[in-house]
């Protein structure tokens, strides 16, 4: 069977449904509605129309030669999901699920959010469809992503800061699941990544598949061949699954997912789930997890709220185990250096999440050399990160910044050694 045809609920030994019995009926209902919608031309046309007239699809690909000069001269192409309405890939999945929720007669959308990108996208869809919206966000994240909190509130959503546990994304998911159990009659849980119980991993992937499908055709048209590698950042892994999926059965295309290594994947402060974790059960699915010996979930750490998650989508766990995709750690400092470099060489400010993919791509480019073509999922824009970035960088003059960015990257690259 083609790798692209995996439909869940299991990807190898990963996936499934590890949730309270109370949610099973809702998951079955969602699964049935999704299965019907997949082959329903009316649904597909509704979604396609929204993408054309609201999201702004197809998104561009942009070649970035000045950035690529710092990456071994490889040809680097960015899939510009940052240009989508609301500023990231998240809107692809949100519009699909919101349409499904409407079909199911649900009037209330709830969501978890880390960086706030998914929360903003969900609040946007709720405003568009006239639905009530509650977004759960770890208290730590509401502080480091205050701008997105304001955006969600302006869109009419209620933002609930979650004070339980580590007060980050994983705790926001717990709280959203508790809300869903209690309000499943009128509420759809609009899960924002390719994790959670079936059918979420496969459904969210499918709503993001359009990223890879568009990009594959765009790269073929521009270069006459498939790229040598496709890269993306991986927290839960929705943007990565979205761009990987179209290439899963092209064995000549290497797939790289870059995890958040925080202070370093060998320290205690990281979110490098596949690099450092082991299989377990969290948030309804069996997958790689950061956890202690007793199976208690470990706290993850990353400068990017969107990657600060101790789990990962089950399909990524499977792609890792079968060797189809490679997952590598990128530190906070490497990501921030790449964020600055793309901003200063190409005039594109990426989200800090996305900057992890750029940092990984720089290492990969050095390894593959100038003949390589690398497609990067530029999953989100960095406007929301200005506070974090401003604090991180201080203010220096432009020349010093560029020199420092290059120097810093060269130093990091020599410290961490070879790419793989």
């Amino acid at each position: 069977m083609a790798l692209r045809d995996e439909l869940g609920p299991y990807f190898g030994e990963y996936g499934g449904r590890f949730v309270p019995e109370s949610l099973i009926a809702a998951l079955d209902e969602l699964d049935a509605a999704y299965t019907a919608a997949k082959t329903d031309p009316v649904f597909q046309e509704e979604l396609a129309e929204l993408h054309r007239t609201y999201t702004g699809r197809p998104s561009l690909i942009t070649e970035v030669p000045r950035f690529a000069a710092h990456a071994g001269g490889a040809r680097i192409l960015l899939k510009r999901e940052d240009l989508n309405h609301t500023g990231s890939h998240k809107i692809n999945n949100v519009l699909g699920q919101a349409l499904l929720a409407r079909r199911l007669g649900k009037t209330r959308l709830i969501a978890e959010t880390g960086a706030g990108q998914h929360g903003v996208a969900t609040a946007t869809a709720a405003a568009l469809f006239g639905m009530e919206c509650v977004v759960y966000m770890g208290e730590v994240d509401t502080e480091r992503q205050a701008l997105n909190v304001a955006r969600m509130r302006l869109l009419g959503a209620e933002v609930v800061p979650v004070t339980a546990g580590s007060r980050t994304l994983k705790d926001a998911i717990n709280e959203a699941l508790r809300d869903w159990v209690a309000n499943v009659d009128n509420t759809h849980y609009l899960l924002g990544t390719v994790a959670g119980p079936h059918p979420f991993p496969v459904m969210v992937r499918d709503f993001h598949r359009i990223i890879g499908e568009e990009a594959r055709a765009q790269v073929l048209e521009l270069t006459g061949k498939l790229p040598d590698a496709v890269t993306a950042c991986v927290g839960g892994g929705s943007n990565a699954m979205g761009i990987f999926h179209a290439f899963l059965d092209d064995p000549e295309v290497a797939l790289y997912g870059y995890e958040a290594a925080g202070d370093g994947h060998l320290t205690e402060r990281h979110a490098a789930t596949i690099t450092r974790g082991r299989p377990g059960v969290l948030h309804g699915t069996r997958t790689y997890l950061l956890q202690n010996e007793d199976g208690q979930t470990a706290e993850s750490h990353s400068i990017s709220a969107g990657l600060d998650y101790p789990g990962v989508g089950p399909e990524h766990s499977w792609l890792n185990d079968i060797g189809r995709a490679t997952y590598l750690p990128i530190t906070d400092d490497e990501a921030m250096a790449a964020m600055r470099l793309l901003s200063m060489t190409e005039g594109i400010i990426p989200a800090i999440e996305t900057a992890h993919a750029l940092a990984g791509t720089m290492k990969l480019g050095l390894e593959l050399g100038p003949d390589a073509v690398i497609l990067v999922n530029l999953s989100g824009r960095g406007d929301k990160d200005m506070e974090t970035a401003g604090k991180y960088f201080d203010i220096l003059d432009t020349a010093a910044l560029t020199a420092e960015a290059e120097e810093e990257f060269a130093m990091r690259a020599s410290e961490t050694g070879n790419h793989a």
Partner: protein
Amino acid sequence: MSTSPVSAVESVIAARKAAGSGALVGYLPVGFPDLRTSIEAAVALAENGVDVIELGLPYSDPVMDGPVIQAATLTALNAGFRLQHGFEAIAEITARTDVPVLLMTYWNPVVQYGVDRFADDLVAAGGAGLITPDLIPDEAREWLDASSRTDLDRVFLAAPSSNHARLEQAIELSRGFVYAVSTMGITGTRKDVDSAAKTLVARLREAGATSACVGLGISSPEQVREVLQYADGAIVGSVLVEALATGGVAAVAATAARLAAGTIH
């Protein structure tokens, strides 16, 4: 429901039923506020009319639990609770009382410990079985095998939203009792027990259940009495945890005794 050899939990419930009433199942988390006190509190449940002890294993991501139990289990984890402490507590509690002890645990700790190893160590400690709030029978193959091999009870959940086939499955694969979730929600005290509970138990009976206990939102002797009019047992948790948090073991004993009055006509 499997019958051989006889489940101690099922026998206790059947005996209370035969006497014209039903069983009181009392929940407390192990390790809260500390391991020693949690053992004393569990023994106090047994000495004050609780028929089955449900010992909660602290877990970092308890999605079925409300604020009271979340706070208690987080306290236990922050104080250094390890799985080994759970087995130690069960061994001591079962040495001091004949009341059967079920362990309520989210699934990942069992997976990481090893399902077979967990079952063997639970038997060795004198535990009666597991209540698994985030493990549905569909995903439970390893646990079904391990519990059958060791004759441990396995309590699956039934919800108001479960269809008939799922109720039948929960009944067939549960041993000890079926945990009937009274309401679409999480643990915590509620003013009224949802009328959905009565309907659910009636549907469970229709599907063949002989041992069904109702949990979620039960916190007074009146509610215990009301539930036992149609169910085989009433499960009480948050109000006991609150008592322990505010008044220690003595308050747990008093609260358990007060709740147990609800099992007497």
